[in-house]
């Protein structure tokens, strides 16, 4: 046969993988590696300049493996390229401080944002890009495929079959991208059992299993204590329910994780039910099992919830509600961030909070001196241009956006930001220029870190009312609509009173009274649960809140 190609050797990755496994042969018994051998294992299977993916989710973290990585000899292992969705633990950054890793592609850094900024400033971290979750997962299969990955799970059997527990989260794309490109998959598990409750990752995709000395690190980050919801948040939530959910018939949606959206959830069984909205709104949600959803689920509002991850304390409740949640044959929840993000992107509405909004409606949660990222919010909080199926809410929003133009009918996703005009310590939410611009300059980024772009934003809800940006005919109107709900911030004070009154007349700005909401009734008494204990009672004792949230 004639050979046209010039290359030879099509299995270099496979051969290299074989060499790595050979080097580690003495360290494992089958696939099981004793915890004490992990540093040696990492030194054996990782090579300098490797791309390594560390599972760092919202909930579970491969924290033991990432801690071991800080202990490898830097002369053997250095200049790694880390790909990781969530930089949450200090040891995630220690490897950069020590020179073990240099390049980083990630999504979100939360509490480590300030230290990250410092390390970037010192040249210890070379940031490739800050992604959304879907972007980064996509790149695992495109140009950022890991050579080695660390994942975390509840249990494994001696063959290497893995049960992730309810927090499956990022595990599937990490394992799949690594295992099918001849990479090395190392799993940290809380327990090694003869049989796992269900197989989330088949043994054939897994190279090593380590029982960590302590269970993986997990935080109840989606638990919002109803006791901390303010009257103002109740008022805003009432406006959202009556002025947006009822108006558009919003049935498929994603909620942010703040107190504002928790207030909406807790008003469904009371205020929304009183308005006769049960069965008409909020039936399908893409959201973690936030405890504040319990009353709405129990009162039959919500038909189905798919989650990116679980939430500490919600395990038994979720397992006992298989009609609502996605539970496995073993009874426990199966989450998956990729699919949750995907569903949420094609839903009818996203609503969440933010820290800053400018007069064009661009929003950002970035704060000075920190490099934090946005995780999944930009995918939820953007119009889905590829959407081809219709729904009542989507079409109505589309009609409003087209201003009666009849050319090509097309829908719009509702993207809502729900904020108080001032945050605590009198920090204005509405600003002339986002801090994101300053951040762009400070850290020489190519883009200012914007969470929701103005062109995707359809509604702003503040204590002053709702601004429907879809109905604005031009940028000037849009700006006045934003100023018209910006309260006593400088942005709000600079409004044209005449223009704002005109917008109000046209229903572009709607105050509580325009919506028929009595402000004096907007108080915590409206909430279906006012404490974590109420949530436990609603759940029939199935919800087991972490100790720090209890007052009984």
């Amino acid at each position, binding site marked *: 046969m004639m050979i046209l190609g010039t290359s030879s050797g099509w299995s270099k990755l496979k051969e290299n993988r074989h060499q790595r496994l050979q080097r580690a042969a003495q360290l494992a018994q089958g696939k099981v590696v004793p915890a004490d051998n992990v540093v040696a294992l990492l030194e054996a299977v990782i090579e300098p300049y490797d791309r390594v993916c560390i599972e760092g989710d919202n909930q579970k973290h491969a924290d033991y493996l990432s801690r071991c990585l800080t202990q490898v000899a830097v002369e053997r292992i250095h200049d790694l390229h880390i790909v990781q969705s969530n930089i949450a633990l200090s040891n995630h950054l220690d490897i950069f401080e020590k020179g073990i890793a240099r390049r980083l592609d990630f999504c979100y850094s939360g509490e480590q944002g300030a230290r990250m900024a410092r390390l970037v400033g010192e040249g210890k971290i070379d940031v490739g890009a800050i992604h959304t979750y879907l972007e980064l997962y996509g790149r695992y299969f495109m140009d950022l495929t890991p050579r080695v990955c660390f994942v975390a799970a509840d249990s494994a059997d001696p063959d290497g079959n893995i049960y992730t527990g309810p927090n499956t989260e990022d595990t599937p794309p990490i394992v799949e991208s690594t295992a099918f490109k001849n990479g090395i998959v190392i799993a940290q598990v809380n327990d090694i059992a003869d049989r796992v409750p269900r197989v989330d990752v088949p043994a054939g995709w897994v190279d090593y299993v380590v029982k960590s000395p302590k269970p993986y690190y997990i935080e109840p980050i989606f638990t919002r204590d109803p006791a901390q919801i303010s009257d103002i948040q109740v008022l805003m939530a009432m406006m959202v329910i009556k002025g947006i959910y009822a108006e558009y018939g919003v049935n498929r949606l994603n909620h942010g994780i703040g107190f504002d959206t928790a207030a909406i959830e807790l008003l469904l069984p009371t205020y929304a039910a009183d308005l006769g909205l049960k069965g008409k709104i909020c039936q399908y949600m893409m959201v973690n099992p936030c405890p504040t959803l319990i009353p709405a689920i129990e009162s039959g509002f919500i038909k189905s919830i798919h989650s990116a991850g679980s939430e500490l304390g919600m395990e038994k409740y979720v397992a006992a509600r298989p009609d609502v949640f996605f539970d496995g044959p073993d009874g426990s929840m199966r989450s998956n961030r990729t699919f949750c993000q995907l569903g949420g992107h094609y839903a009818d509405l996203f609503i969440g909070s933010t820290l800053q909004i400018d007069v064009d409606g661009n929003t950002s949660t970035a704060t000075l001196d920190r490099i934090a990222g946005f995780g999944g919010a930009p995918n939820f909080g953007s119009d889905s241009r590829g959407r081809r199926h219709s729904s009542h809410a989507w079409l109505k929003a589309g009609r409003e956006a087209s201003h009666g133009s009849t050319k090509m009918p097309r829908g719009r996703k509702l993207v809502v930001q729900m904020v108080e005009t001032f945050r605590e310590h009198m920090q204005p939410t509405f600003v002339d220029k986002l801090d994101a611009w300053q951040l762009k300059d400070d850290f020489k980024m190519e883009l200012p870190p914007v969470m929701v772009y103005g062109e995707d934003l359809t509604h702003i809800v503040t204590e002053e009312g709702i601004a429907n940006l879809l109905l604005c005919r031009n940028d000037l109107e849009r700006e006045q609509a934003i100023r018209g709900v910006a309260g006593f911030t400088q942005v709000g004070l600079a409004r044209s009173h005449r223009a704002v009154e005109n917008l109000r007349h046209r229903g572009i700005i709607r105050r509580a009274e325009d919506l028929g909401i009595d402000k004096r009734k907007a108080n915590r008494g409206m909430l*279906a649960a006012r*404490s974590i204990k109420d949530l436990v009672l609603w759940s029939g004792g199935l919800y087991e809140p972490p100790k*720090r949230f*209890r*007052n009984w």
Partner: protein
Amino acid sequence: MNLAEWRTRESFYEATARRRITGVLDQNSFQEILGPADRITSPHLEELGFPVSFDDGVVIGSGLLNGNNVMIAAQESGFMGGSVGEVHGAKMTGLLQSALATKTTAVLLLLDTGGVRLHEANAGLVAISEIQRAAFRLREAGIPILVLIGGNNGCYGGMGIFARCCDHVIMSEEGRLSLAGPEVIETAGGVEEFDSRDRALVWRTMGGKHRFLLGEADRLVIDDIRAFRAAAIELMQKPEPLTLESMLQEHRRLAERLEAYGDCKDALEIWKRMGIPGSDSIPIMDNEAFHAAIKPYVASKETQEKKCHER
């Protein structure tokens, strides 16, 4: 859970001092004494550059309870942690003195406090002692003092001691009644001694249910202003005698407690020793289930004392 019934409840825990008072008393009967318009604020807080409150964090006055004349005070949970400063304390002392002079049916004290206001430390400490002294005079005159505890701050420090110097204590499960707060104990003895962030531990050590089980509270009610009102009506005409006999009874009760539970390190052990089946799940029981579960095993404070008396 019955949502309709639940929605009719009004949380005592969440209500302001003024609302607690108007909710506990007969409708429209409350007459405030030295109200906000009198502007009796703390000169000491002002001197230190702290915000003041027009009532210094305690609302006092008179009103009707089921048609009976009573005097009432309520500490404001949100202002300086309900703490007792000079003016705050003097208002309560003055109220008790007035109750003695006017011979009201009872005095209701809605306590919600961490104790002494440290910004006025010495004056706060003696203020509580003066409240206590005035309360004893009232008891001597046979006018019962009812303490209601169900707010965010619980009832701690000197006020925790004071509360048990009154005739009756009515608590909700959310209420806490103790001397030293969890943070103070943690600071002194380390997190191994008391993890103040472990709120379940805090409540089973100091919360309403445990206090009721020990006989430190006369009534345990749900977190509803009306439930507190009902319990207050029930107890307002039942002064507790402070006599040699009653003190010897109490002494025996406290001796028995030391004897029976002195070595326990967790409320769970105490409850188990009380013989309550399923005692581990006590924290999660609602009020009704709790009373049903403990009834056969724990005598109420009244019957405990009666039993002591019979012996």
